[in-house]
């Protein structure tokens, strides 16, 4: 056992242990570390925000890109929400962001998530796996068909579609477990290997 002499490693390990203490029961150590974390993370967002502001807005503006005055004013308007008499002004920058984001996202979504996916579904249907993908896609889609209720024997189609989706969600669950355990592995490696000097 070769315990780390790095003060930072000690802080990181003790903070992680304080977080894990919530698994036993709620306690002061957990809430203290949680508060410190929120303070540091919020501070970090501001530091990065200032740096990004310099890079994206300020440098081009002082370099002659005067049109950037518009987003600067719109950005400042976001803070009118804290002044009830003029809070409606924050609708303008929100409308700018929402309208642009909707336009940008919408234009590519049809091509990439609808057209390209449909094209890929109707390929090589004599191959059993490709046929199953085709079947899964079409039947899953029938589940979302809400214009009228599918009745009688045809109601079997959305039911099988639901089975396909359940298989997909099961796969997603299996992968989710992998992700969550990985996160703990990272911390345990830090505590046992980096801090306590145990193992590899």
């Amino acid at each position: 056992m070769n315990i780390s002499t790095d003060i930072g490693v000690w802080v990181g390990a003790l903070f992680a242990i304080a977080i894990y203490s919530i698994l036993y029961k709620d306690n002061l150590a957990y809430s203290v570390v949680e508060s410190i974390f929120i303070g540091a993370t919020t501070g970090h967002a501001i530091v990065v925000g200032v740096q990004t502001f310099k890079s994206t807005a300020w440098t081009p503006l002082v370099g002659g890109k005067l049109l950037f005055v518009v987003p600067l004013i719109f950005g400042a308007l976001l803070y009118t929400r804290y002044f009830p008499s003029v809070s409606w002004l924050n609708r303008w920058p929100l409308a700018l962001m929402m309208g642009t984001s909707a336009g940008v996202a919408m234009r590519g979504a049809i091509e990439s998530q609808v057209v390209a996916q449909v094209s890929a579904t109707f390929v090589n249907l004599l191959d059993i796996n490709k046929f199953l993908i085709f079947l899964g896609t079409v039947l899953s889609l029938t589940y979302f068909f809400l214009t009228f209720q599918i009745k009688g024997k045809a109601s079997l189609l959305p039911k099988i579609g639901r089975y396909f989706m359940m298989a997909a969600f099961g796969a997603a669950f299996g992968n989710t477990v992998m992700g969550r355990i990985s996160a703990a592995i990272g911390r345990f490696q830090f505590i046992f290997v980096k801090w306590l000097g145990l193992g590899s």
Partner: protein
Amino acid sequence: MTFFEKVQNLDKRVFYLLMALAIAIPTIRPIGLPVTITSPVKKTFDFVESLPSGSVVVIGFDYEPGDEIELSPQAKALFVQLARKKIKVVTISSFPVGPMFAEECLKVLKDAGYQYGVDYVNLGYYAGGESTLAAFAKNPASIFSKDWHGNDVASMPIMKEITGMKDFAMAMTLNDGPTGGTGTHEWVRQSVMAYGTPFIIGCTGVLAANNMPYLDSGQVKGVLSGLRAAAEYEQLVGKLGDATRGMDAQSIGHVLIVAFVLLGNLGMLASRRRRSAGGEKK
């Protein structure tokens, strides 16, 4: 009351303890079980291998601390391969913490003799998600006039070769989801669909399943998902690291969860049987 029913009433902290042991013991005493290479990872590796030497790629560090263990090892293993092929790297990030992770992973390139500003650059954070990524894709200079270190981007040799997304030989995102940053769907829309730039996804295990349709449709050239993919990539590039070390704990953790699921279901069956037996008696 049967054994399975008794187990159902156990304090949840017993399960927490078992889980902690399942991860801690293999972390301290690794078993070294071999990891086999899966097809999505091999496809990704082969695609990167096919890139021309000297070309430039863009990589998005779109993740937060909770997913660092899954995605940073992917990035480091990939950088080993990129360094061998002398491929230049531009990094951007849609999370405020992303540039710091990028900086850490880019040490692999620095150690391989890469020169900052010439062979690689960390452009830093951008706010605004997909809209800003679209602006970057059209003209990177419109978003980044300075890099993460505050250097002038226009004067960097690496950026002189780049006028937009179309000039990158490959785009990649290391992604933990769209909440607060730019997700994989957004990247596909703004790289592959808008400019035809070959794209690969490095994602957390959580996102693996819903990105597979892109691999099947050929819109993306490869998908790396979670710590497992990172461990496989480490093997492919021949440099074992954190991911490979973590696979034993991952193994025990998964088996334990499957055991929990089985135990829970056996308990349910036992209760059902008892209830139906009780009903018959009445």
